[in-house]
């Protein structure tokens, strides 16, 4: 009781410093606290680097080698080869750009749409709230993945931005609702009235006062949206409903399982395992890093 009383939090308006050298400093201190977080960050940076420079490391048309079809793991082919004798490592590295870029775009779309609609809905209430919430309910009701499958018949998923856009436009519902309820709870705590009496503009209140207070939540969702989107897009390619005009880990999975018979032949196993392991390691990195993001952006944890 006594301890709880003395540490009860006051709803101040902590500013999230951005672009300031001290922010990087704080961020690093938080990350360095646990080795798991450093590992997580290292994994994410590693894959990000792979997505950026990966395609430049290999010729545009990856070399095939008829003498090394389903080659075993070796120095020349660290992850073995596929049905044409192309290095699996090269496929993973060059495929990372689409996978990560699409997931990143999807997360941005999700967070921007979800946050703006949630904030507006919770701030203005009234008719805009009911309209936005009706739409949100609708988006939440339609099962996302089957919708993506159906949309794949009309939508060209060849460009990562196009993929990211569709993933974002179908996935913002939950975040919008959560942001709205957080905004409402800030409203209940007298936040908004207090800012009104100070004569602050709605834009200022929304983005300078409320947003930082739910920043942690949004940052977490950004990362979660990245993993969710990776699963969804790789899954779409894996199902084979999207034309295989691009290099993607899901394409590798699909071909390995349904064409190469990797499930029954040990030879093709590296072809199947390469994208799976890439996928799992990346997820692991994001999950490990989430912990640090929570502490970094959560004002409540920071005060303690």
């Amino acid at each position, binding site marked *: 009781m006594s301890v709880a009383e003395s540490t009860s939090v006051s709803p101040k308006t902590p500013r999230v410093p951005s672009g300031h050298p001290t922010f990087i400093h704080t961020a690093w201190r938080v990350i360095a606290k646990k080795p798991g977080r450093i590992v997580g960050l290292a994994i994410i940076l590693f894959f990000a680097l792979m997505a950026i420079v990966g395609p430049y490391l290999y010729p545009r048309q990856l070399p095939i080698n008829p003498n090394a079809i389903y080659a075993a793991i070796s120095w020349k082919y660290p992850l073995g080869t596929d049905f044409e004798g192309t290095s699996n490592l090269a496929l993973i590295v060059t495929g990372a750009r689409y996978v990560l870029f699409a997931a990143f775009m999807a997360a941005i779309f999700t967070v921007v749409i979800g946050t703006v609609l949630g904030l507006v809905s919770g701030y203005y209430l009234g008719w805009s709230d009911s309209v936005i919430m009706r739409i949100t309910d609708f988006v939440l009701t339609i099962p996302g993945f*089957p919708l993506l499958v159906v949309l794949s018949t009309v939508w060209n998923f060849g460009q990562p931005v196009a993929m990211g856009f569709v993933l974002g436009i179908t996935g913002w519902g939950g975040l919008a609702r959560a942001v709205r309820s957080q905004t409402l709870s800030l409203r209940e705590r007298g936040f908004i009235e207090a800012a009104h009496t100070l004569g602050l503009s709605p834009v200022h209140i929304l983005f300078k006062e409320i947003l930082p207070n739910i920043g942690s939540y949004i940052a977490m969702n950004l990362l979660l949206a990245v993993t969710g989107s990776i699963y969804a897009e790789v*899954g779409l390619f894996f199902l084979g409903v999207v034309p295989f005009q691009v290099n993607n880990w899901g394409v590798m*999975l699909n071909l390995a399982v349904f064409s190469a018979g990797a499930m029954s032949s040990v030879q093709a196993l590296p072809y199947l395992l390469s994208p799976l392991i890439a996928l799992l390691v990346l997820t692991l990195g994001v999950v490990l890093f989430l912990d640090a993001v929570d502490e970094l952006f959560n004002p409540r944890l920071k005060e303690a």
Partner: protein
Amino acid sequence: MQILIRLGKRILAGIVMVLAVASFTFFLVRLMPGNPVAAKYNELILRGMTPVQAMDQVRMMYGFMPHQPLWQQYLLYINQILHLNLGRSISYDGVPVIHIILGAAPWTIILVLTGLIASFVVGVLAGVIAAIKRTSPTGSVLSLSGSILHGIPQFVMGLFLAYVFTTLWVIFPFGAPYNAALTPGLNWPFISSLVRHAVLPVATYALSSYGGWMLTMKSSVITVLGDDFILASEVRGIKMSTQVKYIAHNAILPLFTVFALSIGFMFGGSIFIEDIFDYPGLGNLLLHAINSRDYPLMTGAFLLITAAVIISNIFADFLYSVVDPRIRR
């Protein structure tokens, strides 16, 4: 009485939503590049049908004709939907879509419902233990199991199980829902074959949803354990068994709605599993429809998948107002 009015409103809103989804799919198909409806019509003409025959055929499949104005086509289509007529399949040679869908749905229901119930029961129990023993190694191991299983995507889990149990150790059969040599019916060999073929798909579903239940239940129990009334009941000397009942009742309440919602999402929730294990459910049907450009079938399957969610939403809302006195008014 008030509940009934509320329920009525929800049902009405649900119907509107189904119609909205139907409209969405209508325009999706109608405005698709290459207009599949017109293409089908032309194809039938080329096959030597008279325009009247071709038009009848197209109308049966899609519910509208390519030459009518768009709004007329739309009204015809919606009218058909309201009469539960989803048109006829192209790839199944004109079999009514509703028949094909109703044939596939039971497979998905068996698969998902079994997996859902199994993961719910195990996940909730594990969540309670993980919450109560959260400071001990048992608790940490349970929580970790939940986080890891929750993090693995369904198709990875499916591929993993399929590889381990049908290739590495040939314990379970792969592909097909039962041994095709057997005659379907209530005979033992058939049922045992059915069960053996279902084990891996069900396990995939159960394992990949277990983590979610476990983590949700754990945090729910922890929240309730911190509630004042639990301390109060200890201070009043309430029996341990009654206290446990209080905790369980309060902690499981939020999960009930999620459970009801999950039932709704079941038709669309096993696309990967059905694809990997070649299980003849709705997910597989949807994929088949897309791959063979069978748009009436695709639309119908998607409509059913969505309608199930809408119905379960209404059900969950109703259920919640029954089990939680705070909502009842």
